[in-house]
């Protein structure tokens, strides 16, 4: 097998700071290579460097990227342009923002086709239809006139792939192509990539933080850590017999669907329901064409219990969470706290707190951590200034941060630390119920494990009831006593955590389970 892409000792700097400190690999025609690593490992920078598309401030400071013997690292810009898309193409993470929102899909495909050929308009149009067909968009010819926002997330990623294939490249670099997608859709996209690799012989470089995704798609894998390749080899070898300590740590942190729930070790749920939800419904939009977000949800949460709530995006998980903290009023149904309707009791407001998914946007950038944590105390008139300061310190210690963190702004903290701050804020008014809306989805696996540990520790310590919302079934199984599965605004199944995973009653649950990428390598044919 001849190497189509040969990367030697690639180094990338951002304003003098080294982000990639020497990456080398080779890729044979038609091969699949995975690059795995956590945020900051330099994997995405490496991907961009392959096409020499580093953002402003970044430059290749050493090494070479040879595509069929031609060094892209030193190639002149016009020559580089004729290589991009034509010989090496790229797919990005977020298909929504990566497609031009104001141009029709047809226009964008047309642009991609004409970038590397002077075909006449009708030919280009038929080529566009062909490409959409190839990536499995139904009714391709008609949909050329549609704009990106008229497609679903999965379809948008298919369109991205179609764009990348327009120049018929030998190498396709996919940077986290499925991260923004639901598991079932992720599965489809990975299958599509596999198929393209198989049928067209396009070599694939797949970058992901998710070992499962790599395991499922790539023959070889590269593990990156702090700008360096720490381990490199056949996928099954690396997964089964990791050699580098980092790889071992990484593999240990990955939650596995097969592992049973650990929730029982934290607490035993009390018998009396703490929170009772009956027939909760929420519709949005104009009265004539309402959009149903929640279609009659019944739910109970016991003291000291963790209830996992899973479902795909748009299934109504967040709407439910926000209704529980009274961020909006439900259209129908009722929520009772200790038997009292929620709306009547002001105290209940204090008792139910929310932990957000995004540790960046959910903290006010203008406030210090101390101010952020004191806010709920002020709002609920708890203590005077001195008492509040004391409580802030206590909270910070509780979530594993130093008390002097109070004086700093959120931007001084990493993602995991920020999520700890978010949790501390939720704990501030001493609630009995914590609604965690995807609290670990934005975090790296190692950090994710720490935050999960923190949550179970808090439950042990404080006897909290937790509604744990997530889309990752493995995480949910591990953390929850019970699991509720949500689909299109309804709960389709509720049961003990282990039972739901091992013996799903609803076909949708089964489908979800099947889509979870497994670490046991399923080498592509």
């Amino acid at each position, binding site marked *: 097998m001849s190497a189509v892409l040969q990367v030697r000792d690639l180094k990338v700097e951002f304003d003098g700071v080294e982000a990639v400190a020497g990456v080398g690999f080779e890729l044979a025609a038609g091969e699949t290579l995975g690059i795995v690593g956590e945020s900051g490992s330099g994997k995405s920078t490496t991907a961009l460097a392959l*096409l020499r*598309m580093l953002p402003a401030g970044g430059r290749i400071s050493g090494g070479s990227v040879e595509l069929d013997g031609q060094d892209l690292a030193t190639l002149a810009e016009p020559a580089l*342009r*004729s*290589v*991009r*898309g*034509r010989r090496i*193409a*790229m797919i*990005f993470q*977020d298909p929504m*923002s*990566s*497609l*031009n*929102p*104001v*141009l*029709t899909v047809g226009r964008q495909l047309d*642009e*991609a086709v004409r*970038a*590397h050929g002077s075909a006449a308009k009708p030919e280009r149009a038929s080529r566009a239809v062909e490409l959409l067909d190839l990536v499995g968009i139904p009714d391709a010819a008609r949909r050329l006139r549609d*704009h990106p*926002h008229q497609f679903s997330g999965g379809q948008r990623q298919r369109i*991205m792939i179609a*764009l*990348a294939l*327009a*120049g018929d490249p030998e190498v396709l670099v996919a940077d986290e192509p499925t991260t923004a997608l639901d598991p079932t859709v992720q599965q489809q996209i990975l299958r599509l990539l596999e198929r393209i690799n198989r049928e067209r012989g396009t070599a694939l470089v797949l970058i992901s933080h998710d070992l499962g995704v790599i395991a499922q798609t790539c023959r070889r894998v590269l593990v990156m850590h702090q700008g360096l390749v720490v381990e490199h080899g056949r996928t099954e070898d690396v997964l089964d017999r990791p050699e580098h300590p980092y790889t071992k740590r990484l593999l240990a942190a990955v939650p596995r669907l097969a592992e049973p729930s650990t929730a029982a070790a934290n607490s035993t749920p009390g018998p009396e329901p703490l929170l009772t939800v009956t027939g909760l419904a929420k519709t949005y939009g104009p009265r004539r064409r309402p959009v149903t977000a929640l279609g009659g949800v019944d739910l109970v949460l016991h003291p000291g219990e963790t209830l996992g709530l899973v479902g795909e995006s748009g299934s109504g998980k967040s709407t439910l969470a926000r209704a529980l903290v009274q961020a909006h009023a439900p259209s129908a149904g009722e929520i009772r706290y200790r038997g009292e309707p929620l709306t009547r009791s002001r105290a209940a407001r204090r008792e139910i707190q929310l932990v957000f998914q995004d540790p960046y946007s959910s903290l006010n950038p203008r406030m210090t951590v101390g101010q952020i944590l004191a806010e709920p105390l002020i709002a609920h008139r708890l203590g005077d200034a001195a008492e509040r300061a004391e409580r802030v310190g206590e909270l910070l210690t509780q979530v594993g941060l130093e008390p002097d963190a109070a004086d700093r702004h959120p931007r001084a903290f990493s993602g995991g630390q920020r999520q700890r701050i978010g949790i501390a804020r939720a704990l501030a008014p001493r609630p009995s119920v914590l609604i965690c809306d995807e609290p670990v989805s934005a975090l790296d696996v190692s950090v994710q494990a720490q935050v999960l540990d923190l949550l179970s520790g808090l439950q042990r310590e404080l006897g909290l009831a937790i509604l744990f919302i997530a889309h990752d079934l493995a995480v949910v199984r591990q953390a929850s006593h019970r699991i509720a599965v949500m689909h299109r605004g309804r709960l389709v199944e509720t049961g003990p955590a282990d039972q739901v995973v091992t013996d799903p009653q609803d076909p949708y649950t089964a489908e979800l389970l099947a889509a979870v990428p497994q670490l046991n390598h399923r080498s592509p044919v």
Partner: protein
Amino acid sequence: MRTFLLRRLPSGLLVLLAASFLIFLILRLIPGDPATSLAGPDAGPEAVAAIRARLGLDRPLLGQYLGWLGDLATGRLGPSYAIGGEVADLIGDSLGATVELTLGALLLVILLGLPLGVLGATVRRGPVAVAVRALTTTVLAIPPFVTGVVLVLVFAVTLGLLPAGGHESILDQPDLGVQYLLLPALCLALPSAAILGRYLKDGLERALAEDYVRTATALGISRRRIVLRHALPNALPPAVTVLGLQVGQLLGGAVLVEAIFAWPGLGQLAEQGVLRRDYPVVQDLLLLLVAVYVAVQLVTDLVYTWLDPRIRWE
């Protein structure tokens, strides 16, 4: 579109009603009155009284206001007090001139602003970048009336290329009309073009930092094409909003430019009307300006939705 209009029209009418009241009130608060202006410098009190009665200025204020609204509702604008002729004719004539000026200026705003914005966003270094930046900033730093006087001095008085002022309808005599139009339109357009250019530049820079531009680059599409075909369509909708605001400013700012270039437009008429306390002319005119502004905003929003497919109405 219908629902869009139905939603917007009532509040637009409300603005007009509020505006009419304000306009009426302000005019009555201004000292001096039409009758004494009309009577001339050496009139006696009986002449003034006779004129007051003839104009109906002896009626109570509320009656005058309601009378005006009633006349408006029935489409009767009546005769002007001092300027002479029917208000409808006066406004009609000057509206034509102002529309000509505004459209001319708008065209120049687009013609100048578009390249300024595109160059500003794409050329980062070199003489072109410096020239573009210097042009946008200095144009904004010099008061418009100075620009006007300098333009006249250079192009009309010194070079003798273009007329110093006046108006010739571009519809009747296109070749002469354009020459009369050029300087005032330019004077009016320069600051707005600079503003549009700046917004466009900001918008383009934002657009060029977007992921879809990265996608296009990865596809090997040329920079030029990326800027003009991919980024520009995204930068246009917000620029259109700015342009809409500028049209409002152009209409209002025309007072000064019209004075400098002796352009017989709405601004001149309004100024004359205020100076002679010609209530009917000023009232109807100002209300018209507000109405035009409201309409322009409406059109701007429509164009915005048309340019941005994401928020297109059903």
